[in-house]
């Protein structure tokens, strides 16, 4: 024992000191996001609000996004029930992702950076670092759980009971612990820290997508999903504390597995071997384009796979829609009166969501050029006949290509799965899906344009483009539910684009946004071609 965990407490205290700012932002960020929207939901609940929301959220598309509710009649749908229904899954997901990133950054990342080597040279146990990191993460999630419970209760809303509030908090906290457990296992298996982060996030994403499918088809199956042990606790209605026990057991098993794996591996090595590389470069690498493809390949492939999975997950819901429609008179009326089929309505919403996610990849590719510049990776390349024009436009070109392929895969896999799920009753063909997807191409180009602008004039702001993407994503995602004023929702670029197939294609808008985006890229290029390169200063 001593050999393994000696002085873990010292490291634990050190981590709290090192991370205190991060911990505060973490707890305040997720905590307030989880708990502080009670007044906003009280607004929504006024009048017929609860009833309308209940019907809206019975739509399989909505269930696939926010999860199910145990409430069976609209009259039992209280404020608390609605709050847990709409918020818990997302809050749990965020908690998981943050915890997973944190665990990898304190375990495997430190090994890769060579920090562990120094730490291990002192009288520190072999596994003390991992133990300290996981204890810290659990500690933070416990604080988070109490913080959320306390804040929610403090609003004193009728149906937001103390028990429910703390169950809500505990569910989010346990989601974080599950995420930490998964990440700790991946940190042992994978050959590098970036692979560990990637695979942990991939697993979390997969769990989310799988549950979208099982929530719509059969909620009982979601109970086998580790993510389900956090978001299916149904605070304020069923208050199902026992699920948290499963979450606890799962977390414990993950940690035990991780420690067993760590105990028999060398520092800096994983269980998946690293292959021996090439002595000489392949011809395909030997150009700026070849190099950029190579260094972006990992992130491109994983995102493209994620797009396909996403399309398949949402596409598989289409089969259940008709059944759902027949079961609800209100919804049936709603759709028959508007003259739009439920499939078309769903497609237009989900397409916007998916293309929003597709935009992440091109932004990442453009930002990568600055990351490389900042880390001095390009120093020796600047001194060759390679021009800045080449570096810039190759990056932009690759980003546009990734956007085109991303839309193709997302829309194509959605359409393909949807059509096969609907069988004979299908009212749309694959082309309709692809057209609906490429309809949003200007928005993807716009984000590339923004990233290019930042790259040319103020490269440190490249990350802000993600913020704007997140902002417009939220506006679009919740815009329908929250009934925002027109000018406000227009601050998100996608709001300008008509939602096909429900609305008609708008050629002037398509061309205008495309031209603006290309102009942004050109302006970015002007900056890039004449600014000083930064190189870590």
């Amino acid at each position, binding site marked *: 024992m001593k050999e393994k965990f000696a002085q873990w407490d010292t490291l634990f205290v050190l981590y709290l000191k090192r991370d205190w700012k991060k911990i505060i932002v973490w707890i305040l960020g997720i905590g307030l996001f989880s708990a502080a929207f009670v007044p906003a939901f009280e607004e929504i609940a006024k009048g017929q609000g609860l009833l309308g929301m209940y019907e809206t959220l019975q739509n399989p598309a909505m269930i696939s996004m926010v999860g199910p509710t145990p409430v069976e009649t609209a009259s039992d749908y209280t404020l608390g029930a609605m709050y847990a229904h709409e918020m818990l899954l997302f809050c749990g997901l965020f908690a998981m992702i943050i915890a997973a990133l944190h665990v990898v950054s304190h375990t495997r990342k430190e090994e*890769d950076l060579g920090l562990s080597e120094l730490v291990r040279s002192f009288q520190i146990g072999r596994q003390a670092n991992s133990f300290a990191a996981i204890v810290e993460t659990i500690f933070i999630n416990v604080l988070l759980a109490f913080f959320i419970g306390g804040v929610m209760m403090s609003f004193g809303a009728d149906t937001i009971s103390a028990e429910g509030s703390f169950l809500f908090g505990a569910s989010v906290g346990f989601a974080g612990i599950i995420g930490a457990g998964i990440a700790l296992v991946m940190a042992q298996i994978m050959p590098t820290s970036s692979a560990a982060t990637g695979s942990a996030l991939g697993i979390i994403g997969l769990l989310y997508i799988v549950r979208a499918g099982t929530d719509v088809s059969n909620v009982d199956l979601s109970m086998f999903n580790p993510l389900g042990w956090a978001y299916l606790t149904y605070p304020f209605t069923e208050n199902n504390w026992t699920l948290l026990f499963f979450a606890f057991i799962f977390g414990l098993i993950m940690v035990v597995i991780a420690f067993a794996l760590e105990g028999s591996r060398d520092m800096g090595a994983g269980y998946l071997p690293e292959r021996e590389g090439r*002595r000489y*470069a392949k011809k395909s690498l*030997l150009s700026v384009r070849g190099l950029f493809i*190579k260094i972006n390949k990992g992130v491109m492939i994983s995102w493209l796979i994620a797009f396909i999975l996403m399309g398949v997950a949402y596409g598989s819901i289409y089969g259940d829609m008709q059944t759902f429609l027949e079961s609800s008179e209100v919804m049936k009326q709603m759709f028959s009166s508007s003259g739009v089929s439920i499939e078309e309505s769903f497609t237009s919403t989900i397409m916007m969501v998916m293309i929003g996610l597709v935009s992440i990849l091109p932004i990442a590719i453009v930002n990568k050029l600055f990351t490389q510049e900042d880390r001095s*990776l390009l120093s*020796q390349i600047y*001194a060759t006949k390679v*021009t800045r024009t080449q570096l810039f436009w190759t990056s932009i070109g690759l980003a546009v290509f990734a956007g085109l392929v991303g839309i193709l895969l997302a829309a194509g896999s959605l359409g393909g799965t949807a059509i096969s799920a609907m069988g004979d009753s299908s009212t749309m063909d694959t082309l309709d899906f692809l057209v609906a997807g490429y309809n949003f191409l200007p928005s993807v180009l716009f984000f590339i344009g923004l990233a290019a602008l930042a790259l040319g004039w103020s490269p440190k702001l490249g990350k802000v483009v993600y913020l704007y993407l997140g902002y417009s994503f939220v506006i679009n995602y919740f815009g329908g539910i929250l009934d925002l004023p027109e000018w406000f929702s227009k601050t998100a670029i996608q709001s300008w684009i008509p939602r096909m197939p429900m609305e008609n294609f708008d050629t002037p808008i398509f061309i205008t946004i495309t031209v603006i985006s290309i102009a942004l890229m050109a302006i970015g290029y002007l900056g890039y071609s004449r600014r*000083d390169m930064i190189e870590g200063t």
Partner: protein
Amino acid sequence: MTEIVNVQGLQKSFGKFRALSDVSFTVNTGEVVGFIGPNGAGKSTTIRILLGIINREAGDAEIFGKDTWKDSLEIHKRISYVPGDVTLWGNLTGGEIIDLFLKLHGGGDKQKRDSLIKRFELDPKKKAKGYSKGNRQKVGLIAALSVNSDLYIFDEPTSGLDPLMESVFQEEVEKIKESGKAILLSSHILSEVERLADKVVIVRQGEIVEAGTLDELRHLTRSTVTIEAEGDVAEMASVNGVFNFKQKDNQATFSANNQYLNDILMEASKLGVKKFESAPPTLEDLFMRHYEG
């Protein structure tokens, strides 16, 4: 002998920090110019301006008679560069990166590459993230030395290399020099500069404080003399051109101004000299003189 690099009155600031206030020097064909100075003196900034990575605020910087900012691509066809801290893409192997650099530079000698890989004892099949500092440096050096250029710019190229590899590098630089190429060598390893450089430029806080051949620089300074005599060596202390006199029994050490060397010898000869050693100042002495003073 033609002028390859010509830098005049270079100035550059980063925000409020004045990195370069007045830097001027030249590098000619067949010449190794040692560019020395402490950390933060402006060596790398100067080199980045020469490479067109950043732009100067005032002054002129020309390579092959062309402007380093406006005509950087023309210039880049004929130069090789190794930074002091070579950073590499972790998921590519050393061999792949060398090939990439050769290709982006434009050609390069495959045989030369293979022989350098052997001489520097680099394992080209390893992914770059597994390389130590010295091995990353080797990748940069092999890539730069395998191509045929007219000007080589090295920014502390041997940092992290072991002494054996250092001398491999020095041999390669000597070969390049013999073939009439120009070399700008920024280095902290003064013995390396001393061995290779024909001319030395010392920069301090963004200004050139000394420039010239090593001989010229040495001439301006004092030699260190150690003398042991039968008579009282204390008498030497009052001779013209003697400084920093230190005595221990009948042995003394002092700095001697080279132009008074004859007077000093005459005086010494009266004392019954048992030992007389005169050492020229090392580059380190020159360097220290500028930084301590």
